[in-house]
């Protein structure tokens, strides 16, 4: 076993570009996701500044369209999803008692394709205009005729490349959960966050290929002159809506299920109680994922599908309230009678529950097809989905970040600043979006860049903008908190919250490269809590101390993604007219596309031809690092 393979250990930037360690990839996801979240947040602020008074001319109508499109697209695909992936990468293998994910190389590839896809999309701001057809890119608005700039091409190609990364990540986590669980870690002993991530990955696997096809069709329409959505040539724009929402509705469960998982771990920890109704929680998660694929057409009630289709999708949508309700009551019953500590993490988790219920209630209102004719495309819808995505997911992510920050970085975030973040963000959030329900009911349409005075919209929009600024203050305080925390030395205990229940709290913070010196033996749900109750201070190991096999770092994922990025740019500009004959030559003849794809395929070839033997950490090295024997 112990072949002496020479291993290159990279330092500095090269270490980050070549890492296949899930803990470092988590930090990469967090930094990149945080960056895009910031960009999306600035776009949100510009939208709210434009709308703070009637007939404002802070930005032009065209810029406003670009802002709303990029705000939605950036936040969903490049902001919150990578932060979800950051937490999954940081925590999921630890909760399983695994030394790594099933496919460390693919894990890195997933990150880099996401990153270069996001970069491509955001380059649109400086390369001739951002996408302007809304994050849903409905045709014919997104067709060449009505969106003649390259904006929508940046959308289709950028999301395509980023989506590839998400799909790779989903497959990786599915395989990790199926094959990498520690001895004794049966499925029904997995922590809820791991369960939620597992189910989320399954949704990703079956939802993302649909948008892959949708984006291919739209880019073929725009770049190759195909007729999928061109009515004049027999195409059908409704087809786009179906394909988009067959992906798009499962996508909202991809977003919210991890948040459910996070708070299902946070609430029991700080209530010092076992999660109420664990098995019903698992069942509800699976049921939500299943039903999530049956409801897509509730986004299309007003296009004339007819009463039968509307009624069916109405009922299937309302059904989702049942498993979701089960979850809500389980959280409440977990808190009931617990010794609750309101740390920042728990404050966010507790605020999640009522806020998400409000989003759920408006969801059931929207599910009623006749009423939807009134709500459709108004600010009521905007309020609804911000309640579930910000009030649900983002509060969940804040909770998870405060909770697992010490595990990821070895330092506790400052609790005082954390509570400032909590109160400013949550009050700002309610101020921004609660009032938008009423704006919508009074008839303010979404996606309008300005409105006339004296329709009773003025004060409400002003209040909404003030709330948005308060949310921005909360996020800035969070950023300050990170900077202050990271300037302090590491040194928190394995279990800094002292009431940790799951395996990640049994190992140092941050964990060593190999996570577990000895893979633990799991003897029940909440494995660590169970040992604590039996009077043990650490887990029983399931193996003797031995040589640990590690995968080698590789630059190939990075280069492969660069190849896709180049090919995407080349494809986008392949039909343009260039004054420079060299540029015309390489773009119009697909030379750039071919070069980009060659880079990617040659990397795949190299990966296949040269076996990765990995390297070993020997028991003596483990001793030297001062780990307990």
């Amino acid at each position, binding site marked *: 076993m112990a072949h002496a393979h020479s291993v290159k250990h990279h330092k500095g930037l090269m270490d980050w570009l070549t890492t296949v360690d899930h803990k470092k990839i988590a930090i990469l996801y967090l930094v990149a996701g945080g960056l895009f979240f910031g960009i999306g947040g600035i776009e949100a602020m510009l939208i709210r500044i434009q709308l703070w008074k009637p007939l404002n001319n802070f930005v032009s109508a065209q810029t406003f369209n670009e802002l709303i499109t990029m705000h939605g697209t950036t936040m969903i695909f490049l902001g919150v999803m990578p932060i979800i992936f950051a937490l999954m990468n940081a925590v999921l293998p630890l909760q399983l008692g695994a030394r790594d994910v099933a*496919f460390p190389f693919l894990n890195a590839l997933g990150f880099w394709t996401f990153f270069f896809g996001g970069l491509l999309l955001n380059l649109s701001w400086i390369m001739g205009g951002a996408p302007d057809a809304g994050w849903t890119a409905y045709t014919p608005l997104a067709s060449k005729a009505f969106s003649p700039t390259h904006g929508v091409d940046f959308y289709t190609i950028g999301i395509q490349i980023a989506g590839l990364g998400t799909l790779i990540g989903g497959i990786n986590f599915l395989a990790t959960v199926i094959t990498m669980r520690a001895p004794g870690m049966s499925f029904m002993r997995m922590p809820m966050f791991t369960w939620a991530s597992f189910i989320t990955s399954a949704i990703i*696997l079956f939802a993302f*290929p*649909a948008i892959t096809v949708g984006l291919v069709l739209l880019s073929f329409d725009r770049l190759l002159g195909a007729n999928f959505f061109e009515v004049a*040539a*027999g*195409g*059908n724009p409704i087809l786009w809506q179906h394909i988009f929402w067959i992906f798009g509705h499962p996508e909202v469960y991809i977003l919210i299920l991890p948040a459910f998982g996070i708070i299902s771990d946070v609430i029991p920890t700080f209530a010092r109680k076992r999660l109420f109704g664990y098995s019903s929680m698992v069942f509800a998660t699976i049921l939500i994922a299943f039903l999530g694929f049956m409801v897509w057409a509730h986004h299309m009630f007003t296009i004339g599908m007819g009463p039968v289709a509307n009624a069916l999708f109405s009922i299937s949508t309302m059904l989702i309230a049942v498993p979701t309700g089960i979850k809500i009551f389980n959280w409440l019953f977990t808190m009931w009678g617990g010794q609750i500590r309101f740390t920042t993490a728990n404050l966010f988790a507790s605020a999640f529950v009522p806020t998400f219920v409000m989003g759920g209630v408006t969801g059931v209102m929207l599910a009623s097809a006749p009423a939807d004719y009134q709500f459709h495309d108004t600010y009521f819808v905007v309020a609804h989905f911000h309640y579930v995505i910000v009030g649900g997911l983002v509060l969940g992510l804040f909770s998870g970040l405060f909770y697992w920050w010490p595990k990821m970085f070895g330092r506790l975030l400052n609790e005082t600043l954390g509570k400032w973040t909590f109160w400013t963000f949550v009050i700002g959030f309610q101020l921004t979006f609660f009032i938008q329900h009423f704006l919508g009911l009074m008839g303010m349409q979404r996606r309008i860049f300005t409105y006339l005075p004296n329709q009773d919209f003025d004060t409400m929009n002003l209040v909404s903008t003030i709330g948005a600024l308060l949310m921005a203050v909360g996020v800035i305080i969070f950023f300050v908190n990170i900077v202050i925390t990271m300037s302090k030395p590491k040194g928190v205990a394995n279990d800094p919250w002292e009431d940790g229940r799951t395996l990640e709290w049994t190992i140092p913070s941050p964990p060593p490269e190999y996570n577990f010196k000895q893979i633990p033996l799991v003897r029940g749900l909440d494995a660590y809590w169970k040992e604590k109750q039996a009077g043990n201070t650490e887990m029983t190991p399931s193996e003797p101390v031995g040589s640990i096999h590690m995968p080698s770092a590789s630059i190939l994922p990075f280069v492969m993604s660069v190849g896709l990025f180049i090919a995407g740019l080349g494809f986008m500009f392949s039909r343009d007219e260039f004054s420079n004959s060299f540029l015309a030559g390489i773009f119009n003849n697909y030379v750039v596309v071919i070069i980009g794809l060659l880079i990617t395929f040659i990397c795949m070839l190299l990966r296949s031809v040269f*076996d990765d033997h990995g390297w070993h950490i020997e028991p003596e090295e483990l001793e030297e690092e001062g780990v307990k024997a």
Partner: protein
Amino acid sequence: MSSAHVDHTHGTLPHEPEKATHEGRNKILGFWLFLGGESVLFGTLFATFLALRNQTNEGPTAHELFNMGMTAAATFILLTSSLTSVFAIQAMHRHKLKQLVAWLGITVVLGLGFLGLEIYEFAEYVHKEHFGMTTSAFSSSFYTLVGFHGAHVLFGILWISLLIAQLFKKGLTVVTAPKIYVSAIYWHFIDVVWVFIFTVVYLLGKVG
């Protein structure tokens, strides 16, 4: 962790070398999951085709266009290649390297034959029938669905050829065996997709 890279010489190689290591089993599982995603991909392409197959925009219709003789020949060739890839896996389980390489080689040749027929078919449509990507919604969905499948066949041919080269260099080991095995699963998958294309696109186009 398991000893993934121990060089098994002939005789010590287990009956199913593709499942001998944890990495090998992970690879096979991950590949099945990937094929789940691929099924949705082709499912969406089929749905698109079914929605648009009668939207011919005064261009050629499926009935006028398709030459069943050639398509049947292509189908026969591809189905046979699936059989030869089964023989390749059986040879692998018997640890017969030469037979394995030979059957993989035949699979590649049959794949090339299929691809050649498809390229000939597309070229004929474009040049003789004036049926291109931009002709109609039917043409766009036809070329995208069948073209996606063709691109998968092309990828499979290149992939299996690369694996044949690796077999010559590295021999049959617990590292190369899982690669051969997943490439065979992949090949069966694109074969199954073709069966659906033959039915939904060609047969339905002729009669419906």
